[in-house]
Protein backbone atom coordinates (compact mmCIF):
# COMPACT_ATOMS: atom_id res chain seq x y z
CA UNK A 1 0.00 0.00 0.00
CA UNK A 2 1.01 3.60 -0.42
CA UNK A 3 1.20 6.26 2.25
CA UNK A 4 -1.02 9.32 2.44
CA UNK A 5 0.51 12.43 0.90
CA UNK A 6 2.84 14.34 3.17
CA UNK A 7 5.28 17.21 3.01
CA UNK A 8 9.00 16.39 3.22
CA UNK A 9 11.56 18.73 4.74
CA UNK A 10 15.29 18.02 4.53
CA UNK A 11 17.09 20.21 7.09
CA UNK A 12 20.88 20.49 7.08
CA UNK A 13 21.29 21.08 10.81
CA UNK A 14 19.74 19.99 14.09
CA UNK A 15 18.68 23.58 14.79
CA UNK A 16 16.84 23.71 11.48
CA UNK A 17 15.14 20.41 12.30
CA UNK A 18 14.08 21.75 15.71
CA UNK A 19 12.74 24.95 14.15
CA UNK A 20 10.64 22.92 11.72
CA UNK A 21 9.43 20.63 14.52
CA UNK A 22 8.47 23.61 16.67
CA UNK A 23 6.46 25.15 13.83
CA UNK A 24 4.61 21.97 12.95
CA UNK A 25 4.26 20.33 16.34
CA UNK A 26 2.20 17.20 16.43
CA UNK A 27 1.76 16.92 12.67
CA UNK A 28 5.43 16.36 11.90
CA UNK A 29 7.48 13.22 12.49
CA UNK A 30 11.23 12.90 12.38
CA UNK A 31 12.48 10.47 9.72
CA UNK A 32 15.63 8.60 10.64
CA UNK A 33 16.22 5.20 8.98
CA UNK A 34 12.56 4.86 8.14
CA UNK A 35 12.55 1.12 8.79
CA UNK A 36 9.82 1.40 11.42
CA UNK A 37 7.85 4.47 10.45
CA UNK A 38 7.60 3.90 6.69
CA UNK A 39 5.99 0.44 7.01
CA UNK A 40 3.45 2.05 9.34
CA UNK A 41 2.87 4.83 6.81
CA UNK A 42 2.53 2.32 3.98
CA UNK A 43 -0.18 0.59 6.02
CA UNK A 44 -1.64 3.99 6.80
CA UNK A 45 -1.38 3.21 10.51
CA UNK A 46 0.74 6.37 10.74
CA UNK A 47 -0.35 9.46 8.83
CA UNK A 48 2.05 12.32 9.54
CA UNK A 49 1.42 15.44 7.52
CA UNK A 50 5.13 16.15 7.40
CA UNK A 51 8.33 14.14 7.59
CA UNK A 52 11.54 15.84 8.65
CA UNK A 53 14.38 13.87 7.09
CA UNK A 54 17.42 13.69 9.39
CA UNK A 55 19.63 11.84 6.92
CA UNK A 56 21.50 14.91 5.65
CA UNK A 57 22.45 16.30 9.06
CA UNK A 58 26.17 15.70 9.51
CA UNK A 59 26.28 16.56 13.19
CA UNK A 60 24.07 13.53 13.90
CA UNK A 61 26.60 11.17 12.35
CA UNK A 62 29.79 9.76 13.77
CA UNK A 63 31.02 7.38 16.42
CA UNK A 64 33.84 8.20 18.79
CA UNK A 65 35.46 6.58 21.78
CA UNK A 66 35.99 9.46 24.18
CA UNK A 67 38.99 10.02 26.43
CA UNK A 68 37.29 8.41 29.43
CA UNK A 69 36.55 5.28 27.40
CA UNK A 70 32.89 6.00 26.85
CA UNK A 71 31.22 5.54 23.49
CA UNK A 72 29.49 8.45 21.85
CA UNK A 73 27.26 7.73 18.85
CA UNK A 74 25.46 10.29 16.78
CA UNK A 75 21.77 9.41 16.75
CA UNK A 76 21.85 8.73 13.00
CA UNK A 77 24.54 6.04 13.35
CA UNK A 78 23.33 3.13 11.22
CA UNK A 79 23.01 -0.26 12.91
CA UNK A 80 25.28 -1.60 10.20
CA UNK A 81 28.05 0.82 11.16
CA UNK A 82 27.89 -0.34 14.79
CA UNK A 83 27.83 -3.95 13.64
CA UNK A 84 31.05 -3.49 11.68
CA UNK A 85 32.89 -1.30 14.20
CA UNK A 86 35.66 -3.40 15.69
CA UNK A 87 36.31 -1.25 18.79
CA UNK A 88 32.64 -1.16 19.68
CA UNK A 89 32.28 -4.89 19.17
CA UNK A 90 35.30 -5.66 21.32
CA UNK A 91 34.45 -3.33 24.18
CA UNK A 92 30.65 -3.58 24.35
CA UNK A 93 29.75 -7.22 23.90
CA UNK A 94 26.07 -6.46 24.45
CA UNK A 95 26.09 -4.33 21.30
CA UNK A 96 28.20 -6.93 19.49
CA UNK A 97 25.67 -9.64 20.39
CA UNK A 98 22.46 -7.68 19.93
CA UNK A 99 22.88 -5.51 16.82
CA UNK A 100 23.10 -8.44 14.35
CA UNK A 101 19.65 -9.50 15.59
CA UNK A 102 18.08 -6.25 14.44
CA UNK A 103 16.05 -7.16 11.37
CA UNK A 104 18.17 -8.03 8.37
CA UNK A 105 21.10 -6.52 6.49
CA UNK A 106 18.94 -4.19 4.40
CA UNK A 107 17.21 -2.91 7.51
CA UNK A 108 20.50 -2.41 9.36
CA UNK A 109 21.94 -0.49 6.42
CA UNK A 110 19.35 2.26 6.95
CA UNK A 111 18.06 1.83 10.51
CA UNK A 112 19.69 3.96 13.16
CA UNK A 113 20.42 3.73 16.88
CA UNK A 114 18.59 7.01 17.57
CA UNK A 115 15.59 5.96 15.53
CA UNK A 116 15.30 2.62 17.28
CA UNK A 117 15.54 4.25 20.71
CA UNK A 118 13.08 7.05 19.92
CA UNK A 119 10.64 4.58 18.35
CA UNK A 120 10.74 2.55 21.58
CA UNK A 121 9.29 -0.74 20.43
CA UNK A 122 9.16 -2.81 23.64
CA UNK A 123 10.42 -5.91 21.78
CA UNK A 124 13.35 -4.15 20.12
CA UNK A 125 16.94 -4.98 21.03
CA UNK A 126 18.57 -1.58 21.49
CA UNK A 127 16.22 -0.05 24.08
CA UNK A 128 16.73 -3.03 26.41
CA UNK A 129 20.48 -3.06 25.75
CA UNK A 130 20.63 0.66 26.54
CA UNK A 131 19.13 -0.03 29.96
CA UNK A 132 21.73 -2.67 30.76
CA UNK A 133 24.69 -0.62 29.51
CA UNK A 134 23.44 2.50 31.36
CA UNK A 135 23.30 4.56 28.19
CA UNK A 136 22.46 8.26 28.34
CA UNK A 137 20.66 10.15 25.63
CA UNK A 138 21.26 13.75 24.61
CA UNK A 139 18.12 15.59 23.58
CA UNK A 140 17.94 19.04 22.04
CA UNK A 141 14.95 21.32 21.59
CA UNK A 142 13.95 24.98 21.49
CA UNK A 143 14.44 25.16 25.28
CA UNK A 144 18.01 23.89 25.05
CA UNK A 145 19.79 20.59 25.57
CA UNK A 146 19.31 17.98 28.23
CA UNK A 147 20.70 14.59 29.08
CA UNK A 148 18.51 11.73 30.24
CA UNK A 149 19.40 8.26 31.47
CA UNK A 150 17.97 5.33 29.54
CA UNK A 151 16.26 4.17 32.74
CA UNK A 152 14.16 7.36 32.70
CA UNK A 153 13.51 7.50 28.98
CA UNK A 154 11.03 4.76 28.08
CA UNK A 155 7.49 5.51 29.25
CA UNK A 156 5.08 3.33 27.31
CA UNK A 157 4.89 1.41 24.05
CA UNK A 158 6.23 3.77 21.37
CA UNK A 159 6.29 6.58 23.97
CA UNK A 160 9.37 8.19 25.42
CA UNK A 161 10.43 11.28 27.34
CA UNK A 162 11.28 12.97 24.04
CA UNK A 163 9.07 16.03 23.66
CA UNK A 164 7.35 16.66 20.33
CA UNK A 165 9.77 19.50 19.55
CA UNK A 166 12.97 17.70 20.58
CA UNK A 167 15.55 15.74 18.64
CA UNK A 168 17.60 12.92 20.14
CA UNK A 169 21.10 13.83 19.01
CA UNK A 170 23.55 11.46 20.73
CA UNK A 171 23.77 8.20 22.62
CA UNK A 172 26.51 7.99 25.24
CA UNK A 173 27.58 4.69 26.74
CA UNK A 174 29.95 4.54 29.72
CA UNK A 175 32.82 2.06 29.53
CA UNK A 176 32.10 -1.44 30.78
CA UNK A 177 33.40 -1.61 34.38
CA UNK A 178 36.41 -3.82 35.11
CA UNK A 179 35.64 -7.41 35.93
CA UNK A 180 32.25 -7.18 34.20
CA UNK A 181 31.01 -9.37 31.38
CA UNK A 182 27.87 -8.89 29.35
CA UNK A 183 25.72 -10.87 26.92
CA UNK A 184 22.53 -10.60 24.90
CA UNK A 185 20.32 -13.53 24.05
CA UNK A 186 16.92 -13.50 22.44
CA UNK A 187 14.35 -15.91 21.11
CA UNK A 188 12.39 -15.12 17.97
CA UNK A 189 10.39 -17.54 15.87
CA UNK A 190 12.28 -16.56 12.74
CA UNK A 191 15.71 -14.99 12.52
CA UNK A 192 15.28 -11.24 12.26
CA UNK A 193 11.81 -11.13 13.82
CA UNK A 194 11.18 -9.04 16.88
CA UNK A 195 12.12 -11.07 19.92
CA UNK A 196 9.41 -12.84 21.90
CA UNK A 197 11.80 -12.24 24.78
CA UNK A 198 15.29 -10.70 24.74
CA UNK A 199 17.60 -10.60 27.74
CA UNK A 200 20.58 -8.32 28.29
CA UNK A 201 22.76 -9.52 31.17
CA UNK A 202 25.71 -7.98 32.94
CA UNK A 203 27.70 -9.75 35.65
CA UNK A 204 30.57 -8.46 37.75
CA UNK A 205 32.84 -11.09 39.32
CA UNK A 206 35.61 -10.32 41.78
CA UNK A 207 39.00 -12.01 41.96
CA UNK A 208 37.72 -14.47 44.54
CA UNK A 209 34.96 -15.71 42.26
CA UNK A 210 32.12 -13.89 44.03
CA UNK A 211 29.44 -12.10 42.09
CA UNK A 212 29.44 -8.45 43.07
CA UNK A 213 26.70 -7.23 40.72
CA UNK A 214 24.18 -8.60 38.26
CA UNK A 215 21.93 -6.70 35.86
CA UNK A 216 19.12 -8.02 33.70
CA UNK A 217 17.16 -5.99 31.15
CA UNK A 218 14.25 -7.54 29.28
CA UNK A 219 12.78 -6.85 25.86
CA UNK A 220 9.29 -8.11 25.04
CA UNK A 221 8.24 -8.60 28.66
CA UNK A 222 6.24 -5.40 29.13
CA UNK A 223 5.07 -2.26 27.33
CA UNK A 224 8.58 -0.88 27.78
CA UNK A 225 12.03 -2.47 28.07
CA UNK A 226 12.55 -3.21 31.75
CA UNK A 227 15.37 -3.63 34.23
CA UNK A 228 14.64 -6.54 36.52
CA UNK A 229 14.44 -5.02 40.01
CA UNK A 230 15.68 -6.50 43.24
CA UNK A 231 18.77 -8.37 42.05
CA UNK A 232 21.22 -6.65 44.42
CA UNK A 233 20.21 -8.42 47.64
CA UNK A 234 20.18 -11.77 45.83
CA UNK A 235 23.84 -11.65 44.84
CA UNK A 236 25.19 -10.63 48.27
CA UNK A 237 27.64 -13.26 49.50
CA UNK A 238 27.05 -15.48 46.48
CA UNK A 239 29.64 -17.11 44.30
CA UNK A 240 29.35 -16.52 40.58
CA UNK A 241 28.09 -19.99 39.73
CA UNK A 242 25.19 -21.75 38.06
CA UNK A 243 23.06 -21.90 41.18
CA UNK A 244 23.14 -18.09 41.38
CA UNK A 245 22.07 -17.73 37.74
CA UNK A 246 19.23 -20.13 38.35
CA UNK A 247 18.05 -18.10 41.33
CA UNK A 248 18.36 -14.78 39.52
CA UNK A 249 16.56 -16.13 36.47
CA UNK A 250 13.77 -17.46 38.67
CA UNK A 251 13.46 -14.05 40.28
CA UNK A 252 13.37 -12.37 36.84
CA UNK A 253 10.61 -14.71 35.67
CA UNK A 254 8.58 -14.15 38.83
CA UNK A 255 8.95 -10.38 38.86
CA UNK A 256 7.88 -10.01 35.23
CA UNK A 257 4.29 -10.17 34.08
CA UNK A 258 4.47 -10.49 30.31
CA UNK A 259 1.34 -10.32 28.25
CA UNK A 260 0.07 -13.14 26.10
CA UNK A 261 -0.64 -12.25 22.50
CA UNK A 262 -0.94 -13.93 19.13
CA UNK A 263 2.80 -14.62 19.08
CA UNK A 264 3.07 -16.36 22.45
CA UNK A 265 0.97 -16.99 25.56
CA UNK A 266 2.21 -15.34 28.73
CA UNK A 267 3.31 -18.67 30.24
CA UNK A 268 5.67 -19.17 27.32
CA UNK A 269 7.16 -15.71 27.66
CA UNK A 270 7.67 -16.32 31.37
CA UNK A 271 9.39 -19.59 30.55
CA UNK A 272 11.60 -17.83 28.00
CA UNK A 273 12.58 -15.22 30.59
CA UNK A 274 13.70 -17.93 33.00
CA UNK A 275 15.65 -19.93 30.42
CA UNK A 276 17.24 -17.01 28.56
CA UNK A 277 18.16 -15.08 31.69
CA UNK A 278 20.01 -18.07 33.05
CA UNK A 279 21.93 -18.56 29.80
CA UNK A 280 22.71 -14.86 29.41
CA UNK A 281 24.00 -14.56 32.98
CA UNK A 282 26.17 -17.63 32.51
CA UNK A 283 27.69 -16.27 29.30
CA UNK A 284 28.18 -12.82 30.83
CA UNK A 285 29.99 -14.34 33.81
CA UNK A 286 32.31 -16.39 31.58
CA UNK A 287 33.17 -13.23 29.71
CA UNK A 288 33.83 -11.42 33.01
CA UNK A 289 36.34 -14.13 33.76
CA UNK A 290 37.99 -13.82 30.37
CA UNK A 291 38.08 -10.02 30.54
CA UNK A 292 39.51 -9.57 34.03
CA UNK A 293 41.12 -12.93 34.59
CA UNK A 294 38.78 -13.37 37.55
CA UNK A 295 38.08 -16.85 38.76
CA UNK A 296 34.69 -18.13 37.74
CA UNK A 297 33.72 -21.11 39.87
Amino acid sequence: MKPYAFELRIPRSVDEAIETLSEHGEEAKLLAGGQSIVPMMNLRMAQPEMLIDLNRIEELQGIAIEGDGSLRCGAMTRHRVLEDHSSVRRSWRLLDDAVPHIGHVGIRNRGTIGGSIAHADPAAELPAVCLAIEARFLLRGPRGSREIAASNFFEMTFTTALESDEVLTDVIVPPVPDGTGEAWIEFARRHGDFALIGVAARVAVDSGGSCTKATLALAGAASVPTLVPGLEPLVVGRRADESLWTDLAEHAAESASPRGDLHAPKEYRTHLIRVLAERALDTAARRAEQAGGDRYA
Partner: protein
Amino acid sequence: MHDVRLVVNTVTHERRVEPRISLADFLRDELGLTGTHLGCEQGSCGACTVLVDGRSVRSCLLFAAQLDGATVDTVEGLEVGEDTMNPLQDAFARHAGLQCGFCTPGFLMAATELLALESKPTEDHIREALSGNICRCTGYQGIVEAVKELGTATQQQQSGATATDATDPRT
Protein backbone atom coordinates in the same frame (compact mmCIF):
# COMPACT_ATOMS: atom_id res chain seq x y z
CA MET B 1 7.65 18.56 -5.07
CA HIS B 2 11.37 17.81 -4.88
CA ASP B 3 13.99 17.91 -7.60
CA VAL B 4 16.23 14.89 -7.49
CA ARG B 5 19.19 13.76 -9.50
CA LEU B 6 19.99 10.07 -9.26
CA VAL B 7 22.46 7.88 -11.06
CA VAL B 8 20.71 4.59 -11.74
CA ASN B 9 22.78 1.80 -13.29
CA THR B 10 25.31 4.46 -14.37
CA VAL B 11 22.69 6.61 -16.12
CA THR B 12 21.87 10.02 -14.63
CA HIS B 13 18.22 10.95 -14.24
CA GLU B 14 16.80 14.30 -13.13
CA ARG B 15 13.20 14.33 -12.07
CA ARG B 16 10.69 16.21 -9.99
CA VAL B 17 8.96 13.92 -7.50
CA GLU B 18 6.20 14.01 -4.92
CA PRO B 19 7.46 13.14 -1.43
CA ARG B 20 5.30 10.03 -1.09
CA ILE B 21 6.81 8.25 -4.12
CA SER B 22 8.99 5.41 -2.86
CA LEU B 23 12.29 4.64 -4.55
CA ALA B 24 10.67 1.39 -5.73
CA ASP B 25 7.76 3.22 -7.36
CA PHE B 26 10.14 5.75 -8.84
CA LEU B 27 12.28 3.05 -10.43
CA ARG B 28 9.28 1.14 -11.72
CA ASP B 29 6.85 3.86 -12.77
CA GLU B 30 9.05 6.84 -13.54
CA LEU B 31 12.08 5.08 -15.04
CA GLY B 32 10.35 1.95 -16.35
CA LEU B 33 12.77 -0.32 -14.49
CA THR B 34 10.25 -2.93 -13.45
CA GLY B 35 12.82 -5.53 -12.42
CA THR B 36 12.52 -4.25 -8.84
CA HIS B 37 9.41 -5.92 -7.40
CA LEU B 38 6.98 -5.04 -4.63
CA GLY B 39 6.07 -7.95 -2.39
CA CYS B 40 4.97 -6.48 0.92
CA GLU B 41 5.83 -2.76 1.12
CA GLN B 42 6.60 -3.48 4.75
CA GLY B 43 10.31 -4.17 4.59
CA SER B 44 9.77 -7.86 5.37
CA CYS B 45 10.15 -9.72 2.08
CA GLY B 46 13.19 -8.14 0.40
CA ALA B 47 11.79 -8.39 -3.14
CA CYS B 48 12.36 -4.66 -3.59
CA THR B 49 16.05 -4.80 -2.61
CA VAL B 50 18.34 -2.50 -4.60
CA LEU B 51 21.74 -1.00 -3.82
CA VAL B 52 21.90 2.66 -2.79
CA ASP B 53 25.46 3.97 -2.64
CA GLY B 54 26.61 0.36 -2.69
CA ARG B 55 24.46 -0.86 0.21
CA SER B 56 21.38 -3.06 0.02
CA VAL B 57 18.16 -1.33 1.01
CA ARG B 58 14.43 -1.97 0.91
CA SER B 59 13.44 0.45 -1.85
CA CYS B 60 9.83 0.37 -0.61
CA LEU B 61 10.95 2.09 2.59
CA LEU B 62 12.88 4.95 0.97
CA PHE B 63 11.37 7.96 -0.72
CA ALA B 64 12.92 9.05 -4.02
CA ALA B 65 12.80 12.63 -2.78
CA GLN B 66 15.36 11.72 -0.10
CA LEU B 67 17.92 10.52 -2.63
CA ASP B 68 19.17 13.55 -4.50
CA GLY B 69 22.76 12.74 -5.44
CA ALA B 70 22.52 9.01 -4.73
CA THR B 71 23.79 6.13 -6.83
CA VAL B 72 21.33 3.30 -7.29
CA ASP B 73 22.01 -0.16 -8.69
CA THR B 74 19.13 -2.38 -9.74
CA VAL B 75 18.89 -5.84 -11.26
CA GLU B 76 18.76 -4.34 -14.74
CA GLY B 77 22.29 -3.15 -14.24
CA LEU B 78 23.69 -6.62 -13.68
CA GLU B 79 23.74 -7.80 -17.30
CA VAL B 80 27.18 -7.73 -18.84
CA GLY B 81 26.01 -7.21 -22.38
CA GLU B 82 22.76 -7.12 -24.26
CA ASP B 83 20.77 -10.11 -23.03
CA THR B 84 23.86 -11.57 -21.41
CA MET B 85 23.59 -12.52 -17.75
CA ASN B 86 26.42 -11.83 -15.36
CA PRO B 87 28.10 -14.79 -13.60
CA LEU B 88 25.81 -14.50 -10.55
CA GLN B 89 22.66 -14.57 -12.64
CA ASP B 90 24.07 -17.44 -14.65
CA ALA B 91 24.80 -19.39 -11.48
CA PHE B 92 21.24 -18.78 -10.21
CA ALA B 93 19.90 -20.22 -13.47
CA ARG B 94 22.13 -23.30 -13.40
CA HIS B 95 21.49 -24.07 -9.71
CA ALA B 96 17.68 -23.65 -9.98
CA GLY B 97 17.90 -20.58 -7.75
CA LEU B 98 14.66 -19.27 -9.22
CA GLN B 99 11.28 -20.54 -10.42
CA CYS B 100 8.69 -17.77 -10.67
CA GLY B 101 11.40 -15.14 -10.47
CA PHE B 102 9.49 -12.68 -8.30
CA CYS B 103 11.98 -12.65 -5.43
CA THR B 104 15.00 -13.03 -7.70
CA PRO B 105 15.98 -9.42 -8.33
CA GLY B 106 16.01 -8.79 -4.58
CA PHE B 107 18.16 -11.87 -3.98
CA LEU B 108 20.55 -10.92 -6.77
CA MET B 109 21.09 -7.44 -5.36
CA ALA B 110 21.51 -8.72 -1.80
CA ALA B 111 23.97 -11.36 -3.02
CA THR B 112 25.83 -8.75 -5.07
CA GLU B 113 26.39 -6.71 -1.91
CA LEU B 114 27.48 -9.79 0.03
CA LEU B 115 30.04 -10.83 -2.59
CA ALA B 116 31.41 -7.30 -2.78
CA LEU B 117 32.00 -7.30 0.99
CA GLU B 118 33.07 -10.92 1.46
CA SER B 119 34.71 -12.63 -1.45
CA LYS B 120 34.39 -16.18 -0.12
CA PRO B 121 31.40 -16.34 2.22
CA THR B 122 30.66 -19.55 4.09
CA GLU B 123 27.26 -21.14 3.71
CA ASP B 124 26.25 -19.85 7.15
CA HIS B 125 27.28 -16.35 6.19
CA ILE B 126 25.37 -16.58 2.91
CA ARG B 127 22.21 -17.72 4.69
CA GLU B 128 22.59 -14.96 7.25
CA ALA B 129 23.18 -12.26 4.64
CA LEU B 130 20.22 -13.38 2.54
CA SER B 131 17.88 -13.95 5.50
CA GLY B 132 16.08 -10.70 4.68
CA ASN B 133 14.86 -12.09 1.37
CA ILE B 134 11.93 -14.48 1.18
CA CYS B 135 11.36 -17.05 -1.57
CA ARG B 136 8.18 -19.10 -1.88
CA CYS B 137 9.31 -21.37 -4.67
CA THR B 138 12.82 -22.72 -4.40
CA GLY B 139 13.42 -23.68 -0.79
CA TYR B 140 16.56 -21.51 -0.91
CA GLN B 141 19.11 -24.30 -1.46
CA GLY B 142 19.71 -23.44 -5.14
CA ILE B 143 20.13 -19.78 -4.24
CA VAL B 144 22.71 -20.64 -1.60
CA GLU B 145 24.57 -22.96 -3.99
CA ALA B 146 24.67 -20.26 -6.66
CA VAL B 147 26.15 -17.70 -4.28
CA LYS B 148 28.61 -20.27 -2.91
CA GLU B 149 29.80 -21.01 -6.42
CA LEU B 150 30.43 -17.32 -7.04
CA GLY B 151 32.47 -17.16 -3.86
CA THR B 152 34.60 -20.09 -4.91
CA ALA B 153 35.01 -18.73 -8.42
CA THR B 154 36.12 -15.33 -7.11
CA GLN B 155 38.67 -16.99 -4.85
CA GLN B 156 40.08 -19.01 -7.73
CA GLN B 157 40.30 -15.99 -9.98
CA GLN B 158 41.97 -13.89 -7.34
CA SER B 159 44.55 -16.34 -6.08
CA GLY B 160 45.11 -18.37 -9.22
CA ALA B 161 45.15 -21.44 -6.98
CA THR B 162 42.60 -24.15 -6.39
CA ALA B 163 40.13 -23.35 -3.67
CA THR B 164 40.83 -25.52 -0.65
CA ASP B 165 37.66 -24.96 1.32
CA ALA B 166 37.18 -28.25 3.11
CA THR B 167 33.43 -27.78 3.40
CA ASP B 168 32.91 -27.39 -0.35
CA PRO B 169 32.36 -30.84 -1.94
CA ARG B 170 33.27 -29.53 -5.38
CA THR B 171 36.95 -28.88 -4.54
